[in-house]
Structures are given as structure tokens and as C-alpha cells.
């Protein structure tokens, strides 16, 4: 009996909704993002790789895996090899906490909101290490910018998540989802629209997408922190970015949009919940791609100023509103 349970758990970790599903879905999200981005710019986007270009991210990944892997003389060999692997491992680990096929993730423990927030901070740190270890001046500039931007977006991101946790009076993702499904009956975005907006904006900064792609800024500092990475290592970084997209949109779905819950046929919940998860994350990605194609890159000081001057007070205001609503007994 125990071996069977262990096997099922292992399958959950590796196949669904663990590693393999998440990687495939990450590739799909990248394709969705690129296609939408192209549509907004009046282009067509990937077209000839697989049906409608669906396999483009996969083709990029395989090509990079098969390319020569250069380690520059000036790089710190151990750190240079380790950071890409760690980045992928850490992003996969955080995804285990996201509820995909049921109201709980594969892993769930008390206080996992804080754990997930902490690990998503490690993303930023790993990017800084990645730039630092490659020993190139462009990546050094990229590292500095990552650090500075990190100071900007991390606090509003955490505050927006905290306001949701305050509304549900719980620090466990499962409980927050349960609260929306069973007690409130509404997704929390109804009461925390400001927090949702702040979450999306800081998520863009976390993913280093266009208005906040300052650390990569191809036109200024070539490729930022990833300038020296080639072949397998670059492939892993790209994979990690895709996984982060799944993580960010999945967490938004879980915290603000009622998790993977939706109308379903009794008995077939896992399938319907997965479909609802995909629909909700695609909505989040749609908003993110919109923002990405609407804006031009900000300057680094504008980003830090903007986050601290406007986002943090707004996030605090949102927490106050939530507390007021709880005090009045609305939620």
C-alpha cells in the first residue's frame, strides 16, 4: 500500500502537476506571450514551427541545448555552472505550491505564502549571482541594475500578497483558495483590485518583461546579466523564465481569482480544475502581454521611485481597506 502511495506522489512530482506538465505549460505560455506581443505590434509572430508556431519555444530550447557551451576565462567556473541549474530547480520547487488540479498544491504547509514569497526573492538573488559570476562588465552592470530594481519591486509584491492573506486571515495558499471558494463565494479580486494591479506590475518587474527589462536592456547593455551565457546554460535560464511565468500567473490565479475552482462535473474535478487553471492563468498572461507591448522601458531611478512613492503607499492603503471591510463585517 505504502509503495503505491509513494509512487503516486512521485508521479505527482514528476509528471502531473509537477515538472513535466509545468515545463510544457511554460513553453505554451511563452508561445502565447510571443504571439500576442507580435499581434499587438501588427506582426504575425512564430508561425512555421509546429501548428501556428506552437513548438517555437521547444525548438529554441533544443537548439540551445545542442549548442557549444562556452565558459569564459574570467568567469567563476563553479558559480557559472551552478546558477542556471539552481534557478530552474528553485522555480520548479515553487510551482509545487501552486494549486493546479485541486484546491491544494502538491505541497502545502502552514505559512507557505511566506515560503513562496521568500523563494521568489531567491529568483532575484540568483540573477544577481548569475551576472556576478560571469565576470563581464556588461553583466556586472546588469547585476547592479537587478539589485536596484529588486529593492523596488520586492516590497510592493509582498504587500499585495499580504493584503490577500489578511483578507482570508490565513497564511496558507490552500486556506486562501478555500476561503474564496467556500466562505466568500467570490474571487478576492472584487475586494482587492488595487493589490491585484500592484501584483501584476511588480510581477512584470520580477519577470524582467519590457517596461522593467532594465537588467537585460539589449539596446543598452547587450544582454545584461545573461550576456556571457551560451548553449545549455542559456537554455536553462530561458526555461526558468518560462517557469516563473507559470508561477506568477498561477499565484495570481490562486490568490486573486479563486484558484483553479470553477463549475465542474462532480467526479471529474481534476480535469475541470486544470482547465479553469489554464483559463485563469491565460487571462493573467493576457494582461501582462498587454502591458508589455504598451510601454517603453523605464529608467532605473524612475522604477525605484515609482515603486516606493506610489506602489507601496497604495499597497498599504489596500491593506487598510481590507481591514476596514473585515471590521465592518463585509468579508
Amino acid at each position, binding site marked *: 500500500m505504502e509503495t503505491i502511495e509513494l509512487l503516486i506522489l512521485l508521479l505527482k512530482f514528476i509528471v502531473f502537476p509537477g515538472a513535466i506538465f509545468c515545463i510544457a505549460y511554460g513553453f505554451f505560455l511563452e508561445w502565447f506571450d510571443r504571439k500576442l506581443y507580435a499581434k499587438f505590434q501588427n506582426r504575425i509572430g512564430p508561425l512555421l514551427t509546429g501548428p501556428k508556431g506552437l513548438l517555437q519555444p521547444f525548438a529554441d530550447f*533544443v*537548439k540551445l541545448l545542442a549548442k557549444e557551451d562556452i565558459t569564459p576565462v574570467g568567469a567563476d567556473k563553479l558559480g557559472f555552472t551552478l546558477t542556471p541549474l539552481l534557478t530552474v530547480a528553485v522555480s520548479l520547487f515553487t510551482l509545487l505550491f501552486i494549486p493546479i488540479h485541486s484546491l491544494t498544491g502538491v505541497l502545502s504547509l502552514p505559512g507557505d505564502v511566506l515560503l513562496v514569497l521568500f523563494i521568489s526573492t531567491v529568483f532575484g538573488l540568483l540573477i544577481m549571482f548569475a551576472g556576478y559570476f560571469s565576470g563581464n562588465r556588461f553583466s556586472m552592470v546588469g547585476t547592479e541594475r537587478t539589485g536596484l530594481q529588486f529593492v523596488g519591486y520586492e516590497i510592493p509584491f509582498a504587500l499585495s500578497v499580504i493584503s490577500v492573506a489578511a483578507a482570508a486571515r490565513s497564511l496558507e495558499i490552500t486556506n486562501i483558495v478555500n476561503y474564496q471558494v467556500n466562505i466568500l463565494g467570490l474571487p478576492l479580486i472584487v475586494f482587492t483590485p488595487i493589490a491585484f494591479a500592484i501584483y501584476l506590475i511588480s510581477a512584470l518587474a520580477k519577470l524582467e518583461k519590457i517596461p522593467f527589462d532594465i537588467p537585460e536592456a539589449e539596446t543598452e547593455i547587450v544582454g545584461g546579466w545573461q550576456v556571457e*551565457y551560451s548553449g545549455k546554460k542559456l537554455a536553462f535560464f530561458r526555461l526558468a523564465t518560462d517557469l516563473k511565468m507559470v508561477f506568477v500567473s498561477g499565484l495570481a490565479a490562486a490568490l486573486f481569482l479563486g484558484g483553479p475552482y470553477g463549475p465542474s462535473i462532480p467526479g471529474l474535478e481534476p480535469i475541470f480544475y486544470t482547465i479553469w487553471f489554464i483559463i485563469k492563468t491565460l487571462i493573467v498572461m493576457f494582461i501582462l502581454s498587454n502591458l508589455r507591448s504598451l510601454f517603453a522601458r523605464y529608467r532605473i531611478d524612475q522604477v525605484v521611485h515609482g515603486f516606493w512613492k506610489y506602489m507601496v503607499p497604495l499597497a498599504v492603503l489596500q491593506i487598510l481597506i481590507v481591514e476596514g471591510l473585515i471590521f465592518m463585517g463585509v468579508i
Partner: protein
Amino acid sequence: MAVLSKLVKWARIKSPWIIHYNSGGCNACDIEVVAALTPRFDVERFGILLKGSPRHADVLVVTGPVTRQTKNRLIRIYNQMADPKFVLAVGTCTITGGVFRGAYGVLGGVDEAIPVDVFVPGCPPKPEAIIQGVVKLLEKLQKT
């Protein structure tokens, strides 16, 4: 193994990332290369992306003749790229030196400095011609 190498070849053909370098041309070719990336021609259809770093790119797109000043830089950029790498030379200048041939600072075509896979003639070539050049390059890849 055969399946794997087929997969890799398919991936290589489907995602050639380019880096663009002007080794001393008059800029018209560069404008045409950039035009190939814009909505009207949109080479992202074929999976082509413009990359900033030579370490990320597969195809080096060179425009203009090689001058004495840029020769070393061109060679250095070529050496920085990861294998397998290809060179696409755009414009008449890259073949013979074009209108700059014989000038005191000009060495001549791009093959004076680095090996070239495909030449695209024209002064400047149309974006269609550049895309045709890329297709020729991919055909060459298909045969290997």
C-alpha cells in the same frame, strides 16, 4: 541517436537567432536588415530573433566591406559565437568591397576576415532578398 540528431537539426533550422554587425558599410544595408524584422516582413515567423550578444546568436549578419579598423573586431565577434555558427553577408560591399573597393582603409569583402556561408548581392538588397538568403542558409543546413 538518429532520432535525437534529427530533432536537433530540426530545432536548428527552426530557430536561427541572428546578431547584426556593420563592418563599415554605408548604413543602407542595415536599414534593409532592420526592415526585415519589422511588421511588413516579420522574420519571427521563421523563428528568427535579433539578439544583442554574440554568445546567444547562431547567425552573424554582416553588412558592408571590411575596413582595416573593423577587421579585428569582426574576427573577435565571430570567435565569441558558440558553435555551430554561420555567417550571412548582406550587400555587394561584403562580396567585393563594392563602391568602397580600392579605398585606402578598405580591405575588401567579408571573406578577407571570416568564412562566409551565404552572400546576398544587391546595393542594398531588398528585405525579400535577405530572407531568401536566410532560406538558402537553412537549406544548406538541411543537407548536412
